[in-house]
């Protein structure tokens, strides 16, 4: 099976790659040796952030190299790294109060609500909304809206107010998880039960069975929910 080759531009040089390639597979096809700007290739690590423009469209778009399928005449550049200020702190010494943003990321308050960050986000997150939530001191909202952020950096690269959205969100999520989120009491309880040896006997019994016996036990297990 042969695939059609389509033209794309990498750092403004024209190449032909198989239709249906992603930016990363296109680069690999062409023989580029990727040392930066590539990672898990599963859309999770945020290393392969790229900027591109489509034919006939003035809009600048952002996407992950491993997830973005190339189009004919697409112009591509990789942004493997975005310089960003990173606050150094001890989480135990912080309070869940909006003043931590004033202290560690004061540029946050330069936000112009222009939505440029939201438009470029490859994860399609509501970036401006969580930045505004941080301005309002609403840690829970920041945590919920930024949950899928993979720290690719494109928002910060484009921001006219030079905010580092992903680091602000990281701080908010850490505070939320440590101080504000409801603790799972069931987990704590189960851990106590295990430590007290409640499951020791049953576990030892299972370990002593042969594979045949284990299989039997498995198929005869009690299923206490309805599968329809």
């Amino acid at each position: 099976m042969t695939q059609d080759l389509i033209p794309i531009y990498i750092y403004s040089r024209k190449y032909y790659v198989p239709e249906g390639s992603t930016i990363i597979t296109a680069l690999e096809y062409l023989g580029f040796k990727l040392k930066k700007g590539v990672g898990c290739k599963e859309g999770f690590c945020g290393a392969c952030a790229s900027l591109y423009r489509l034919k006939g469209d003035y809009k600048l778009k952002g996407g992950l190299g491993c997830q973005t399928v190339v189009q004919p005449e697409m112009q591509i550049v990789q942004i493997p790294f975005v310089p960003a200020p990173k606050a150094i702190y001890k989480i135990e010494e912080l309070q869940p109060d909006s003043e931590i943003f004033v202290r560690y990321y004061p540029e946050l308050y330069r936000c112009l609500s222009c939505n440029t960050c939201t438009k470029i986000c490859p994860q399609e997150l509501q970036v401006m909304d969580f930045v505004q939530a941080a301005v309002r001191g609403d840690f829970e909202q920041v945590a919920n809206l930024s949950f899928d952020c993979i720290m690719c950096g494109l928002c910060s690269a484009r921001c006219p107010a030079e905010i580092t959205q992903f680091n602000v969100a990281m701080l908010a999520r850490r505070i939320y998880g440590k101080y504000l989120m409801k603790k799972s009491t069931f987990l704590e309880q189960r851990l106590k039960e295990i430590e007290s040896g409640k499951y020791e006997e049953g576990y030892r019994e299972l370990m002593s069975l042969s594979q045949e016996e284990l299989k039997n036990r498995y198929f005869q297990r009690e299923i206490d929910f309805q599968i329809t």
Partner: protein
Amino acid sequence: MNERFLRIKRIVLGPRNREFSKKVEELSGETVNLCEQCGTCSGSCPMVGEMDITPSFMMRMVQLGEEEVLESKTFWICASCYTCSVRCPRGIDPAKVAEALRQIKLRAALDFLDISKITEEEAKTLPQIALVAALRKFTG
């Protein structure tokens, strides 16, 4: 207070002066030549004590197109209280002229406020409104 500016004995107006004056007029939307130097704005300004030149003098320098006005501290001390705006007998808005001068500096990436100088103590008490406003006025 303004000896540095008083040293200007002979003023020669050239095309560059006119350019600067026009630029400030465009940015602010104010016809600076209407200013008759009555001094009402200076008299009304609550911040005038800390300024190196008065608001009237600032307007004069803009009228004459003296770019040296950009070295003054005056328009940075402005608190945008608009007292001058409501009292000017000729209906000019000196607050807008001050903003235009700030923007000329800020657009050349010459910020007035260094955010890193905000102390930990200040970060605890400063309300958002103060920080947002200061960042809008003093950073570009």
